[in-house]
């Protein structure tokens, strides 16, 4: 039998294959890591995998949600364990192959240096990866898993068990009338909100940058500082300020400004359409300075020669704008503009802090201005419909990722063409 096969077979128990290849230190290391892994995680794996499959069998001994969480941690640990195990098998096989071909195996010192140089990127990015798994990936996996359970107010620990129900929640979103109509209402407003609010802030930002950047405008520094103010003040503060300004009964917009023009008070917070208008205007106010700042940077980096050459060729102001300024801005800023859209799609703060996604809509769990994320928040925190919230999270993620990937691809080709 060839060395590679024997080594591979032996390392079904980690380390034995390495012993066979006469790499004792490495073999001991694998053996130790393997033993430590089982000693440390054996119980967790056993318990976790049982938990994630059954979600508990007895009340009140088993808490389905904790079991699910442990189960997911067990799966993550298992994936890492399998990774190490694979490395062990592969190492034994490759070194066995070297022996079959009668080549020298690397010495202990070479192995050490090899690990140091190849392992460097893993070592320096390892801690970040750990935090990322803990703080982002585990929560996302957990909430994706919840979407396939019946976890809600009536199926919640410790009094009740939670069960796997497959795609039932997803199909209910589209078959239960009140859920379907709420879902599509919220989705429609989310899309309108994203498009209108983002376009408003982007175009306002670019417009103001161009206006301030004209050669013959004076007090540039003053105007720049003023225009950047909305970006510099913390967002949650300004949203709460606006909530006061727009207040139907005591807000200054109704009482001072509109009254001065003789316009009747407008129900900003209690009529859905006026709320939506207020939200869009506010987001324009909040969001344009960022675009303004970046556009200003781009404008200042456009060489003057371009404009001079165009002037000599007899180009009008408008032609210069259309053929020099605009393309330069759009190419440099495409990624930043796209992030504005994804940001607004998930812009929870402005919706929730302004009037809690209100006004309330009778018979619906979502208010008149709720976007998908704020609706999900309400389903979780207020009506305890956890599995519905989780299923919506999946739909939302799929939606955003699909659009963003499509956009990134388009802008990339746009860049290469330019």
């Amino acid at each position, binding site marked *: 039998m060839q060395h590679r096969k024997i080594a591979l077979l032996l390392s079904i128990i980690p380390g034995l294959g390495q012993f066979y290849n006469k790499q004792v230190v490495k073999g001991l290391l694998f053996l130790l890591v393997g033993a430590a892994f089982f000693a440390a995680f054996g119980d967790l794996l056993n318990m976790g995998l049982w938990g994630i499959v059954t979600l508990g069998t007895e009340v009140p001994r088993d808490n389905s949600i904790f079991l699910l969480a442990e189960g997911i941690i067990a799966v993550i640990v298992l994936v890492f364990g399998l990774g190490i195990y694979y490395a062990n098998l592969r190492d034994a096989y490759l070194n066995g192959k070297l022996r079959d071909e009668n080549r020298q195996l690397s010495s202990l010192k070479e192995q050490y240096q090899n690990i140091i140089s190849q392992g460097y990127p893993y070592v320096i*990015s390892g801690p*970040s990866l750990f935090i990322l798994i803990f703080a982002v990936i585990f929560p996302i996996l957990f909430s994706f898993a919840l979407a396939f359970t019946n976890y809600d107010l009536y199926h919640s620990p410790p009094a009740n068990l939670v069960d796997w129900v497959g795609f039932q929640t997803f199909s209910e979103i589209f078959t239960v009338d009140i859920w379907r109509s709420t879902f599509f209402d919220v989705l429609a407003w989310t899309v309108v909100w994203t498009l209108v609010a983002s376009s408003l802030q982007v175009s306002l930002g670019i417009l103001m940058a161009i206006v301030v950047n004209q050669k013959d405008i004076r007090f540039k520094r003053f105007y720049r500082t003023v225009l950047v103010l909305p970006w510099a003040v913390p967002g949650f503060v300004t949203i709460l300020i606006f909530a006061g300004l727009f207040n139907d009964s005591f807000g200054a917009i109704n*009482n001072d400004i509109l009254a001065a023009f003789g316009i009747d008070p407008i129900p900003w917070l209690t009529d859905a359409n006026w709320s939506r208008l207020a939200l869009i205007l506010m987001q324009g106010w909040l969001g344009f300075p960022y675009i303004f700042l970046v556009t*200003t940077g781009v404008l200042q980096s456009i060489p003057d020669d371009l404009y001079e050459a165009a002037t000599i060729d007899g180009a009008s102001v408008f032609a210069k704008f259309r053929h020099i300024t605009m393309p330069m801005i759009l190419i440099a800023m495409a990624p930043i503009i796209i992030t504005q859209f994804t940001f607004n799609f*998930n812009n929870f*703060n402005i919706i929730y802090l302004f009037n809690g996604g209100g006004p309330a809509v009778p018979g619906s769990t979502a208010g008149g201005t709720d976007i998908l994320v704020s609706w999900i928040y309400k389903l979780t925190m207020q009506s305890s419909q956890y599995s519905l919230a989780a299923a919506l999270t999946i739909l939302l993620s799929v939606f955003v*990722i699909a659009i963003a990937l499509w956009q990134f691809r388009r802008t990339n080709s746009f860049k290469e063409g330019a």
Partner: protein
Amino acid sequence: MVSDMKKQKFFRLLLSYGLLTFMTVVIIYPLLWTVGASFNPGNSLVSTSIIPENPTLDHYKELFAGKESLQYGKWYLNSLKISIFTMIGTIISVSFTAYAFSRFRFKGRKNALTLFLLLQMIPQFSALIALFVLAQILGMMNSHWLLILLYIGGQIPMNTYLMKGYMDSIPIDLDESAKIDGASNTRIFLQIIMPLSRPMLAVVAMNGFTGPLGDFVLSSTILRTPESYTLPIGLYNLVNEVMGASYTTFAAGAILISIPIAIIFIMLQKNFVSGLTAGGTKG
């Protein structure tokens, strides 16, 4: 012809200054109104005017009066602590990871980059229930350190992308000649790459610092007692307990947090712009 051009220029400038004046008013008004409200006597906003007739410092005093439900000083320190540690943690983890992605070709690199791109798009707080359960399992409800870890994790994907893009634009010849001179990877990172990435470090630092200040969801899920609150939750509760009742006090609190932050932002904006435009064009 000449007078035509003059006329055109006149209208262009008229329109420009008109627009600028309008925007200035629209921006300044709400801010001044808040300043006015904070000096207005009483709790009601009905009588609020930008220049109060009997200005008072009562609301500022009330913030620090040490009421059970209004521990402004404590919230301020909590927010400061969380923001600073999130900023430091973000800078360290992001710059190391970005260095690995930018300078090394290792197994799993491509997959990890795609993963980071996807993770940027799923809002972290949509996994709220999980974070809540996590905090309970770990027995870390009300823990600022758990929150800081969660914030750092949330900052990693996007900022790593920004940072990697910026590092990619630093010529690799610099690394190579240093390597020939016998410098180790870590030394190249600390003495060459980091100093040259300063504009983007400013961006990452700012994102790390302001991220926690803009968050309402994660912090309100994990922090449940008034003495552990951060400013966003504290001030939100202040406004919403009885709508309008504590609005003037809120205004005072809002001003004390906004002014220092606005000053830092305005001072750092140059760095910020150069970092973003350089990183932005690289995608």
